[in-house]
């Protein structure tokens, strides 16, 4: 039996809507709650995909008898629940921060899982049912599924630039009803009309988004007179501009205890209701330091540690500020007399909102990701400043543990050093943690990068510390005794500690902001020695401080399994901040996903003895392998395309589109059974090749990079689209009752896959992820269902 064009279109739309919903949910939950909770909730909710296979497997006959109405109902239910789940979640008084203290909140967390699993479950049931019904035509349906998702990945990125997340949610809800109307064309008008009414009516309930009372934005808005003056939304973040006339913002991390003056009027900008950055006031008559006098109160910029380099030289000709944000560091460079300042900022809306400072005549604005900017620049700077970008909260709780950062890798630091004039400085400021973690790792990373450039770490590094920040100064060349003396004076005048500098003695450090012992001096001294001393330190330190690399770009990962028993013992004794939540949550997510997968998928399979072992192994391994390769590709191309967001959109879209095309031509390919083997071979050959080639082509303009990336993805993706539909088609012919199980197993495996890929990459790097993926495809080839 052939599916109608309407059915195929419905599958495409629904698949696209489900993917868009996943991306949107990540956005919405990041605004309402925190990133780590988002990860936990979504990773489990996606198991709704797997559960749909179980449901169809069990009720196959009944569903098939009334196919049109069943598929339409699930599609419409997706429309209702995509919005409904979020609405209900907004009304549950849930505080994720309390989970560590009490089990009462765990129940609510469980409720969140169930809520958000429902929409995915509904969409997947409608799609899986169509696959089951028209099994022998599965290549065509699977193609629609992949192409729908592929288009959606690109579209939703664009959409999130144009509309508020709530509007995007409404559009996704409508898509569910459109798919329902296509499945049940007899009642198309009624479904569309009813659905639209429902979605439009929901708007007043959806707005405003209720943000956790403990997030920084909520706290700021509770101050009398504080209010939001502007909001800008994009797939990068929801930016809220807040004015607080009665109790002004006074954001000055690392400000010297010797500073006695006032701070200037600041306007706060929150990203996703946290991550405060501030805008400084324009100068006299709205003009900046170039035309008028410097704005009042900015004198404080000389009393923060990042001002140190400006004291080392009379003036700087060419300064780059990386992560310029609200522009405080840019203003600091200007007031310290820099002749030319390049301000690099990732978020275009941030540049827009910050306005004045980016328009100063001496300022050149670059809307780019830091790494891409450096890479594409053929300039040499006297000073590169990496501003303190992420919030203290995120840094303290270790929630970024698993987010990749290509800014703080050995390759990145080396690249920045290469873009310095001889004698130029790279200055990086970070929050200080107790006991120190990222500062130590940053030291280690810089030491290794310096060695790569044949510079002398012991002579090129200085570290300035306040009670809550640390600023690392790396010079391309030796820091001379005069410079050390200048730094000494700079620090003494401001009660900062000069914890490390060439020729400095242990007793000279740790004077103002006193740690139990001069730990940072000891650590830095051991790191610059290198060799076995450094290795021993990496081993003995209870946090993971081995430098991050481009292949293992997890700068914020500090967790060591060895320390886990000690941390667990301290958990109830104020040891919380020592535990790195990002990592623990990944493990928790894997464990819970496994339990859920067993409960909803494996147990029914075992008890009902309905699925064959081969079905499980084959569809499980290609489900795992597909996402492994996709994730590895995104990782490789993030560096190349220079922007995590665009890389994800380009890679995801082209992967799915080409896999869709591959799926569509399955019938015309001879010897289709060797497709998994081909995938393994091509992956092993192509990915390293692409990696090397892309490094070589890094200097190309963006317009050329996108087509090159797509061309790199095409052959592998094309092949990867084949194993699923070709096997499913054969299955449909011989054992049609196996089709829903194949769908469910494949769905479950892909959910587990993204988490495992992260785990493997954290410990062994992305090359290992590719290796494991190839192995999985070989396993698939050996267990082809009717081989």
């Amino acid at each position: 039996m052939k599916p109608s064009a309407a059915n195929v279109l419905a599958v495409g739309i629904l698949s696209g809507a489900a993917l868009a919903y996943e991306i949107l949910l990540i956005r919405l939950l990041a605004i309402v709650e925190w990133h780590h909770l988002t990860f936990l909730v979504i990773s489990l909710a996606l198991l709704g995909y797997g559960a749909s296979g179980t449901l169809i497997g069990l009720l196959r006959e009944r569903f098939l008898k009334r196919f049109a109405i069943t598929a339409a109902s699930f599609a419409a239910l997706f429309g209702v629940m995509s919005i409904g789940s979020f609405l209900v979640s907004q009304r549950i008084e849930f505080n994720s921060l309390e989970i560590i203290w009490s089990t009462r909140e765990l129940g609510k967390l469980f409720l969140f899982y169930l809520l958000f699993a429902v929409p995915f479950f509904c969409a997947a049931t409608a799609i899986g049912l169509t696959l089951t019904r028209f099994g022998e035509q599965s290549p065509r349906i699977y193609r629609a599924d992949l192409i729908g998702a592929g288009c959606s990945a690109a579209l939703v990125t664009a959409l999130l630039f144009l509309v508020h997340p709530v509007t995007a949610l409404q559009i996704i809800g409508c898509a569910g009803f459109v798919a329902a109307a296509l499945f049940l064309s007899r009642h198309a008008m009624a479904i569309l009309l009813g659905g639209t009414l429902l979605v439009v009516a929901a708007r007043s309930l959806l707005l405003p988004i209720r943000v956790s009372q403990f997030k920084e934005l909520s706290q700021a808005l509770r101050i009398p007179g504080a209010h939001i003056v502007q909001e800008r939304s994009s797939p990068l973040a929801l930016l809220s501009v807040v004015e607080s006339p009665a109790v002004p913002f006074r954001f000055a991390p690392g400000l010297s205890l010797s500073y006695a003056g006032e701070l200037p009027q600041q306007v706060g900008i929150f990203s996703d209701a946290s991550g405060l950055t501030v805008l400084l006031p324009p100068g006299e008559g709205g003009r900046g330091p170039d035309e008028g006098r410097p704005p009042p109160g900015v004198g404080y910029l000389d009393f923060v540690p990042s001002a140190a380099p400006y004291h080392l030289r009379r003036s700087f000709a060419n300064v780059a500020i990386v992560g310029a944000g609200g522009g405080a560091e840019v203003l600091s460079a200007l007031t310290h007399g820099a002749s030319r300042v390049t301000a690099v900022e990732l978020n275009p809306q941030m540049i827009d909102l910050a306005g004045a400072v980016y328009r100063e005549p001496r300022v050149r604005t670059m809307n780019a990701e830091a790494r891409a900017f450096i890479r594409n620049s053929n300039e040499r700077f006297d000073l590169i400043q990496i501003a303190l970008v992420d919030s203290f909260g995120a840094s303290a709780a270790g929630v970024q543990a698993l987010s990749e950062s290509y800014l703080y890798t050995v390759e990145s630091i080396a690249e920045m050093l290469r873009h310095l004039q001889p004698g130029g400085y790279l200055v990086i400021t970070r929050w200080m943690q107790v006991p120190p973690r990222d500062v130590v790792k940053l030291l280690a990373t810089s030491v290794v990068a310096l060695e790569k450039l044949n510079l002398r770490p012991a002579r090129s590094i200085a570290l300035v510390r306040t009670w809550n920040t640390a600023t690392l100064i790396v010079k391309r060349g030796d820091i001379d005794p005069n410079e050390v003396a200048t730094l000494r004076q700079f620090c003494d005048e401001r009660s900062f500690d000069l914890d490390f500098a060439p020729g400095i003695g242990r007793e000279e450090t740790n004077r103002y902001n006193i740690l139990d012992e001069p730990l940072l001096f000891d650590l830095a001294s051991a790191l610059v020695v290198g060799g076995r001393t450094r290795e021993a330190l990496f081993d003995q330190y209870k946090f993971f401080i081995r430098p991050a690399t481009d292949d293992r770009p997890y700068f914020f990962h500090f967790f060591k399994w060895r320390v886990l028993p000690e941390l667990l013992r301290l958990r109830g004794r104020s040891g919380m901040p020592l535990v790195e939540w990002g990592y623990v949550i990944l493990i928790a997510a894997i464990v819970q996903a496994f339990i859920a997968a067993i409960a909803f998928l494996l147990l029914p399979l075992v008890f009902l003895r309905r699925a064959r072992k081969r079905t499980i192994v084959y569809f499980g391994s290609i489900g795992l392998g597909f996402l492994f390769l996709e994730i590895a590709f995104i990782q490789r191309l993030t560096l190349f395309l220079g922007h995590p967001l665009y890389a994800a959109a380009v890679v995801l879209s082209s992967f799915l589109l080409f896999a869709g095309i591959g799926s569509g031509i399955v019938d015309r390919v001879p010897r289709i059974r060797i497709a998994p083997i081909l995938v393994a071979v091509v992956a092993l050959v192509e990915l390293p090749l692409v990696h090397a080639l892309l490094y070589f082509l890094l200097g190309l303009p963006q317009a050329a990079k996108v087509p090159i990336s797509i061309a790199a993805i095409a052959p592998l993706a094309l092949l990867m689209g084949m194993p699923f539909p070709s096997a499913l088609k054969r299955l449909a012919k011989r054992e049609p009752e196996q089709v829903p199980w194949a769908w469910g197993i494949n769905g479950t495996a892909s959910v587990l896959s993204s988490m495992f890929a992260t785990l493997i990459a954290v410990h062994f790097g992305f090359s290992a992820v590719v290796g494991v993926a190839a192995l999985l495809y070989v396993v698939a080839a050996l267990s082809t269902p009717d081989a």
Partner: protein
Amino acid sequence: MLIGTVRVGMLTAVALFALSTGASDPFAPARARMIQAIEDDVRETSEDLGRPQLTSRVMQVMASVPRHLFVPPTLQPYAYENRPLPIGYGQTISQPYIVAIMTDLLGVKSGDVVLEVGTGSGYQAAVLSRLVSRLYSVEIIQPLANQASERLRTLGYHNVTVRQSDGYYGWKEVAPFDAIIVTAAASHIPPPLVQQLKPGGTMMIPVGGPFTTQYLLLVRKTADGRITTRQVLPVAFVPLTRKK
């Protein structure tokens, strides 16, 4: 807001009545367990705190303040657990162990005049009030300031004055202070507070998120006006394993 204040007032009045008539305090066993938990934690972290135990005066006061009257009524059953609790308005009442060590590390004497920035529930103020001569406390959120003020008054902590104002500027009219305790987060230590601290005085700032204290920052002003800080980890943890 008004209703909230009245309700808090009535509750505390009823409780006070129960205490003063000598009726057995149903929370006494829970409070005793809390004291035990604090003592256990302190023993565990004695090296980090630089003292084998907290002064008995601090522990006596901890054992006397009715913490359950400082939390929302629905959370009273959990009031004496050694953990922070939400009190509304995005604020929390700190973990008893943290309150105890902060109070102890502040090292106040009976004649001291102390400033608290961030009154919250008023629990920390209640504990400190029994150890010093006068306590001034500022809170930016009006309803919290009202509730805490009313609560402290009815419970008989008469040497505490609460006002609603911007803590950044301290309390100039009654400065300088022997000690300052700042429970509201800030990106830096406000210069006006440093100025209002007497030479030889101590300032205490817990640093961390709403439900976690990462470390305690102890700010000292020496007799000659020099400022130093010291970070105290509230947990027994040495980051570097030494070779034996």
